[in-house]
């Protein structure tokens, strides 16, 4: 049994670097954030539904997926949209992230169950 905090931290390193590679531009380029949030939710849905051990779940799930996806950038970008008068786009951004991530979790769990 490896130290859980170390596993989560190491997964977090990989998740943060992978998010950076996807090209996070924290401003109003909200598609990058949407992409990592939906993709990371799909993988986490798969990991949670699959019979993976607790070590892998901490490393790849809580660590990698948790760090790859982001709530803070999502919240900032959504508020910036509303602030600049694009309220409809802000609402759309909040909705699409939520519906997309939840659907991705369901799809991930479905894929894990089928394998």
């Amino acid at each position: 049994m490896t130290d859980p905090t170390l596993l989560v931290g190491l997964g977090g390193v990989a998740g943060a670097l992978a998010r950076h590679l996807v090209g996070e531009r924290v401003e109003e380029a909200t598609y990058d954030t949407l992409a990592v949030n939906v993709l990371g939710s799909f993988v986490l849905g798969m990991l949670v539904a699959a019979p993976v051990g607790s070590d892998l779940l901490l490393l790849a799930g809580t660590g990698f997926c948790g760090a790859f996806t982001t709530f803070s950038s999502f919240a900032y970008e959504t508020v910036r949209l509303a602030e600049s008068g694009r309220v409809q786009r802000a609402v759309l951004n909040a909705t699409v992230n939520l519906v997309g991530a939840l659907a991705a979790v369901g799809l991930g769990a479905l894929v894990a169950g089928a394998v």
Partner: protein
Amino acid sequence: MRERLRRLEPLFLIAAGGFVGAALRFAVAEALPSSALPWGTLAANVAGAFLLSILLYENRFVGALSPETRLVVGTGFCSSFTTYSTFAVETAALAGLPGVATGASLPLLAVANVAVNYVLGFAAIGLGQVVARVLA
């Protein structure tokens, strides 16, 4: 050698922030008493959004902090401390989604989880802006 290190510096900064952010999110979730609502993720999302907001509005208003600070604290720490995937899985689990549900289906609590994360998360961005303006 020095040139190569310089180009790798942003990656080291993001990696360091990412390690601390993810590990601290886990520690916060472990430290909080377990209950039906996932408080750990909520606390991390709201606190991380507040810190990121101060950082990014500071950059808009003043710009005194270095790009390195934004990389290690913003892209590294805040974005790894906060999480959308864990929030989504916990919400789906509360709603009783097959494969991820851990207990009884509690649709109202799932809706409440989304509402508190969204409302408090957006409020934290607004509050961070106020703090950045006061400090400016």
